[in-house]
Every structure is written in structure tokens, then in C-alpha cells.
């Protein structure tokens, strides 16, 4: 339990070995490289000149495009294990030329987007022409004469009477071509000399003019009518659509390469990581030098891996010295590792600090169970995570998370049976508290658990303070609280005088040591003020009442679902169909929100009420140079 020992490692080798050295280190995945400081006066190392970034970019684009065409069900997404890649396959991928495959995908993608855009343009042109379809005169013949100007105009239908009224005053003539819901489309002739004044009027009416777009003009033989042009467009649209379909088929066909592309992407991305690592090394004329951090337990494997490379390779290691900030590695037995997730979410402990995983694990286990308190839901979650764990064989944090969910499922089964029920039906023989009829008892249980956790947190703080001479006064203050809190509660409950005296003793300790001041009066007053912290402890413990509220809400909603089912069952025939749907849907919904609530609130109790008593975060995790895949696992 706690933190694993971390040591500083330095490796010196012949320059010629640097490629192999980095490959070995990356495969081992145990050493975090640190950039060698310029103060050492060593030369920087220049890695291979190539950068894979442009290639990786192309891979990302190709994978993204092909994923659009890959129809994968939810089952495949969630439950398909990642493929594994070994060393030989990795080498093969690195040697392979991916250009032609990427080009094929890129071409299809480009064409697909191009044709798609063209199709959109054609549809737009068609929509633009639609109102003018009834026009039987070829557009090329609509030319102004010496005295008459020709227009095609669009006007809001409601303004049409106003335009008609202009006819009597002005030298105008128009004929409607078509109408839609909002606008009228008109063919209009006007006498040129009066045009300026007429245009004034048009502006008021909100007239807009139609001109054939340049692109369409080009397509159009002079004798064509609008409907000919539209037919022509229609043909083009059909042809493009067919082409688009063939491109879609081609894209779908190309998705069979997706697994190769994703594996290659992972391999190349890791190769780029390795290339980046060259910048962290330093060199002299003949040797290369690297330094980093490693778990002490991994030193032997490191030596085993590097020694065969050369007899002239030197590995040195030492524990971190004062002033250095080594990375942090949590070290817990397998059963506790899933709970490390909670610790990591809050932040890693400082080097040399306390790992809160062990203290928080039993409480977190218990609290989620109490918050959900539905054994049926627990069973579902446990089975699902067990299935995921065994079937998909996840690795790393996903594995830990599925194990955590398994734990929480089990906890919910136990506590659900004791204080809740199975899908809304309590098993009376096994019930120790029925939260619906005895909420006060449940509340006291929740507060008692809270009191224990808060007290336990204070205890951890006190113990850690006594380990260093300068923090002993803080430790004594904590001891004061450790004595004061339980005794004052007992005194309040039982009114036995001895507990009253003990609590005064604790308060005395707090008054004496809470303030760091030397002046006795200031110290006494500061100590008195320190006693005010009791309100914080009170608030913290009361905060655990949420365990009751969340537990109750799950039970009540489960009950509501069952009541609805009963009501639905009374409906003839339809009831038989609807009832299972309500039952399943209702309980799944309740499962989802109660697990979300239970998880988040239990976590909050750890972070806000428990961690504040003793935990200091701020460490950075060890990030070794390693092979890490987004789509594949490396052997």
C-alpha cells in the first residue's frame, strides 16, 4: 500500500547504440525520460530527420472518412476486444509503403466531396429556375429594343395590386409567369425613357430582378427555353447522383482496410513518439547519455533488457535527493487497484505523501452501495462489468474501471438486500432497516458512517503529523479533536458526566495547540477560535445525510415504476404489452441515474469531506516512454 519507491536512472552508452536503446526502452515501457539539462554542457542529440506527422495527419483523415462508412453496431463498439500487435507485425508496418492506400482513400474522399458540392450547386440552380419554367420564350430572345427594356422580376404577392395600379400611370406592361406561396414571378416590359422614375417606384415595392447566372448561361444553347435547361440540369443531377452512389460503394469497399489503417496509425504514432524522444538525450563525441525516473522494482527488468545491447553500457541509479520532484507511482494490492481511479481523479499524492486509496476504498464501496441500494441493479451492473472484463479483456484504466464497477455492483447487491430491495420489492426477512418506514434510523446510520470517516481522516492526519518533529503541535491539535468529537457526541446522547470531562480534555488540547502564536494570550484566544472548527466537523458529518436521500430516491422510484406497472397491467390486452416496457425502461432509467448519482456523490464525500482532513495532492504521475495504442494493444 502507498507509494512505490522511484529512483533516478542514468544510462551512458556508445552513440551507435542510441536507436536500439530507445527502441528497447519504448518496448519495456518502464522509464520516464527527462530532458537532459543544458547545464551539463553536453551536445544535444539530433534524431532521424524524418517527421511522421504529415503522414499521421493523412492517416487520421483517412480513418475519419472511412469510419463514416463503417457500419458498426453498439455491440461491436463496446464489446470487441482490441487487436494485439507483436514486434514483427510492427516492423512490417513500419516498412510497408502506405502511400498508395492512403492516396486511394484520399481520392475517393476528394471526389465524394467535390461531386457532393456540385450536386448541391445543381439543385440550387434548379430551384432558381423553377418559377420561370412556364416561360415559353427562349431566354436569349428576351433582349431590350431601342425603346423597351425587358425584365424578369420577383415580387411579394401582396404587392401585386400596387404594381397593377402603376400600369395606368406609367408606360409599363407585365404578364405573370408563375406564383408560389410568397412571391409572384413576372415578365415585365418598360419604356426606356421613363425607366429612372419607374425604378424609384419599384424600390418601394421591393422588386428583385432575375438574371440567369453566368454558369447557366454557358451551359445553354441560344434557342433553349427554361424548361429545356431544367431538363438538362435534371439529367446532370441524375448522372452525378449515380456517380456519387458508385463513390459511396467504393468508400464502403475501402472500409475493409480500416483495421490495417488503424493499426498502422498506432504503430506510426508510437514511432513518432520514439523519434521525439531523441530530443531528450544528450551526447558527447562517442557516447550518448540519458536520464529519467523509474520504479525501483523495475530496475532489474531494465538491466536485463539493456545489458545484452553492449558490454560497455553503464546504468547508474540513486534515490531522489532533496529538491528533486520525482514522479509518483501508486502501489497497491490488486484488490485495491480499481479504487486508485478515485485517487487519480482527484490528483496524485505529493512525492513522499500519503496514498489515500486504502483509506477511501471501504468507504467508497459502502457509500455507493447505500446510495444505489437496489440489489437488482447491483446484479445487473456486476454481471455486465464481469462480462466486459472477461469477454473484452480490456487493459489499463479500462480494466480497472470495469473491476471498480464490479465491486460497486457487488456492494449494491449486499446493501440493496439489507436496506433496499430487488427491483423495488424488498426482501423483508433480510431487511435490517426499511428506509421508507424508518428513515430516521437510516439517517442516523448515514451520519454515524460519516462521523467514522471524518474521525478516521483526522486520525490519519494526526499520525502523519507525529512522524515529523515540526508538525507535532498540529498532531496534538488533531488528537484533541480525536478525543473531543466522540466524547462530546456520547455526552450529548447519554449525558454521562465522564464523557463531558473527556471532551473538555480534548477541547483543552485544541485550545493549547491550535494557534502557532507564542504570546500566551494571543495563543489562548487563537485556540478558542480554533474550537470554532467544530462547526466544520458538524457540517461535514451532516453532509453524509445524502446517503439516505439518494438511497431513498432509488427505492421510491423503483416503487413508482412497479406501481405504474400494476396500473398498466389492469388495462386489458394492451397492458400485457405495455407493462414489460414500463418495467424494463423504468428500471433501466432508475439504474442509470442512481448509479450516476451514487458514484458522483460518493466521490464527492471522499474529495470534500474526507480528503480535506489529511490528503495533499500535487504529485505528477510517472509517464514512461511506452508503446500505447488507441486502436490496438502492443505485445
Amino acid at each position, binding site marked *: 500500500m502507498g507509494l512505490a519507491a522511484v529512483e533516478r536512472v542514468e544510462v551512458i552508452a556508445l552513440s551507435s547504440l542510441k536507436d536500439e536503446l530507445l527502441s528497447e526502452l519504448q518496448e519495456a515501457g518502464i522509464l520516464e525520460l527527462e530532458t537532459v539539462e543544458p547545464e551539463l554542457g553536453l551536445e544535444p542529440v539530433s534524431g532521424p530527420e524524418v517527421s511522421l506527422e504529415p503522414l499521421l495527419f493523412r492517416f487520421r483523415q483517412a480513418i475519419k472518412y472511412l469510419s463514416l462508412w463503417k457500419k458498426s453496431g453498439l455491440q461491436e463498439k463496446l464489446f470487441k476486444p482490441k487487436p494485439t500487435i507483436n514486434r514483427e507485425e510492427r516492423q512490417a508496418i513500419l516498412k510497408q509503403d502506405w502511400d498508395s492506400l492512403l492516396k486511394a482513400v484520399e481520392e475517393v474522399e476528394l471526389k465524394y466531396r467535390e461531386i457532393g458540392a456540385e450536386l448541391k450547386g445543381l439543385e440550387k440552380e434548379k430551384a432558381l429556375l423553377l418559377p420561370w419554367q412556364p416561360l415559353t420564350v427562349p431566354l436569349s430572345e428576351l433582349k431590350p429594343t431601342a425603346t423597351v427594356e425587358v425584365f424578369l422580376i420577383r415580387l411579394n404577392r401582396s404587392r401585386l395590386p400596387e404594381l397593377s395600379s402603376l400600369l395606368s400611370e406609367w408606360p409599363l406592361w407585365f404578364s405573370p409567369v408563375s406564383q408560389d406561396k410568397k412571391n409572384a414571378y413576372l415578365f415585365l416590359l418598360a419604356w426606356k425613357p421613363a425607366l429612372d422614375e419607374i425604378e424609384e417606384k419599384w424600390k418601394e415595392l421591393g422588386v428583385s430582378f432575375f438574371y440567369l447566372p453566368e454558369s447557366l448561361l454557358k451551359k445553354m444553347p441560344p434557342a433553349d427555353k427554361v424548361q429545356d435547361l431544367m431538363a438538362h440540369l435534371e439529367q446532370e443531377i441524375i448522372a452525378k447522383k449515380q456517380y456519387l452512389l458508385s463513390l459511396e460503394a467504393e468508400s464502403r469497399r475501402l472500409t475493409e482496410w480500416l483495421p490495417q489503417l488503424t493499426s498502422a496509425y498506432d504503430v506510426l504514432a508510437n514511432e513518432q513518439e520514439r523519434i521525439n524522444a531523441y530530443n531528450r538525450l544528450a551526447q558527447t563525441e562517442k557516447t550518448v547519455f540519458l536520464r529519467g525516473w523509474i520504479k525501483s522494482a523495475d530496475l532489474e527488468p531494465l538491466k536485463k533488457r539493456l545489458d545484452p545491447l553492449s558490454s560497455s553500457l553503464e546504468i547508474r541509479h540513486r534515490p531522489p535527493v532533496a529538491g528533486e520532484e520525482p514522479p509518483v507511482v501508486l502501489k497497491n494490492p490488486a484488490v485495491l487497484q480499481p479504487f486508485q481511479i478515485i485517487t487519480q*481523479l482527484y490528483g496524485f499524492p505529493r512525492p513522499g505523501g500519503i496514498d489515500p486509496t486504502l483509506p477511501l476504498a471501504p468507504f467508497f464501496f459502502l457509500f455507493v452501495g447505500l446510495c444505489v441500494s437496489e440489489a437488482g441493479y447491483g446484479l445487473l451492473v456486476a454481471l455486465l462489468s464481469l462480462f466486459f472484463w472477461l469477454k473484452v479483456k480490456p487493459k489499463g484504466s479500462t480494466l480497472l474501471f470495469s473491476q471498480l464497477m464490479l465491486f460497486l455492483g457487488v456492494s449494491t447487491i449486499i446493501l440493496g438486500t439489507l436496506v433496499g430491495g430487488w427491483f423495488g420489492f424488498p426482501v423483508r426477512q433480510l431487511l435490517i432497516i426499511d428506509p421508507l418506514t424508518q*428513515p*430516521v434510523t437510516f*439517517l442516523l446510520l448515514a451520519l454515524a458512517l460519516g462521523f467514522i470517516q471524518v474521525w478516521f481522516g483526522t486520525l490519519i492526519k494526526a499520525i502523519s503529523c507525529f512522524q515529523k518533529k515540526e508538525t507535532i503541535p498540529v498532531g496534538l491539535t488533531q488528537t484533541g479533536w480525536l478525543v473531543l468529537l466522540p466524547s462530546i457526541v456520547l455526552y450529548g446522547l447519554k449525558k454521562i458526566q465522564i464523557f463531558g470531562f473527556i471532551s473538555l480534555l480534548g477541547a483543552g488540547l485544541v485550545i493549547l495547540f491550535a494557534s502557532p502564536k507564542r504570546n500566551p494570550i494571543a495563543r489562548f484566544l487563537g485556540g478558542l477560535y480554533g474550537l470554532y472548527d467544530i462547526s466544520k466537523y458538524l457540517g461535514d458529518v451532516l*453532509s453524509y*445525510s*445524502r446517503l*439516505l*436521500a*439518494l438511497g*431513498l*430516491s432509488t427505492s*421510491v*422510484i423503483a416503487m*413508482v415504476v412497479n*406501481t405504474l406497472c400494476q*396500473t398498466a397491467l389492469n388495462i386489458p390486452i394492451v397492458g400485457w404489452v405495455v407493462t414489460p416496457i414500463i418495467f424494463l425502461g423504468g428500471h433501466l432509467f432508475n439504474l442509470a*441515474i442512481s448509479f*450516476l*448519482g451514487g458514484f*458522483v*456523490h460518493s*466521490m*464527492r464525500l471522499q*474529495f*470534500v469531506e474526507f480528503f480535506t482532513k489529511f490528503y495533499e495532492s500535487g504529485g505528477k504521475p510517472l509517464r514512461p516512454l511506452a508503446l500505447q495504442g488507441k486502436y490496438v494493444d502492443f505485445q
Partner: protein
Amino acid sequence: MEMGLALAFLGAASAATLAGIGSAIGVGLAGQAASGVMSEDPEKFGSLLLLVALPGTQGIYGFLSAFLVILKLGVTGGKIAQVNVHQGWQLLIACLPVALAGLISAIHQGKVCASGIYMVAKQPKDMTKPLILGALVETYAVLGLLITILLLNGIKL
């Protein structure tokens, strides 16, 4: 309808309605933010869903408090209990903590979650921190629910 029963119904209705309004606003705020983020990065749907759903709990608390009142009155069974005016007022007042704390806290939790969603957009790995911040706001709705349940439990019909 008798006055007492009317007051009791008002209590149940206000618990479900006010807390529901709060949640609707809160989830709405978070949902808008999430849609904005997803327009850039559609793959975040899964991780944002939790943050959007979080301000929804107040509505459920209100709903379940209302349901407790309904059960107490025996409305679903068809045989409605006799409620005098005093008991009616008691039931109405008992519903207020969850209704009002739910209404206000859900709106503010929605704002916190919306900001959290913007945070996840930039720091995808810090998924849980905004969840915890949201849960800090929710505390007061949970406490309101608790008091409502305890009060309802204490009312004798």
C-alpha cells in the same frame, strides 16, 4: 374538493413542478453548451451526456416527493384519505424544501455544468472534476429532499 386535500395536492404539484422547472432549465443550459461543443467534436457525446444529465436529478427528487404525498393520500389506490385543513397545510409546507431548493439549485447546477462542458472541451481528461463541482451545488437539493422526506414521514393522517 375539501380544502385540506386541495392544499395537499398543491404541495405535491408544486414539488414536481418547481423542481421540474429548475431541472428543465438546468438541463437546457447544459444541453446547449454540449451541442456547441459537439458541433466541433461529435465524439464527446458520451462524456458530455453525464454533465447534461446531472441537473436533471432535482426534477426527479421533486417527482418522488410528489409521489410520496400521493402514496400518503392514497390517490393511486382510489380510496383517498381524509385530510383536514391543518394536515393539508402540513403536507404543503413539507413539500416546499424540495420544491424551492430544487428549483434554484437545478438552474445554478445547470450553469456550473455548462461551464464544465466548456472545460471538458479543452481538457478532455478532466471529465470528473466538473461532475464534482456540479455535485457541490446539488447538495442543497439533496438536503431539501431529505427534509421533505423527514417532514412527510412525520405527518400523521
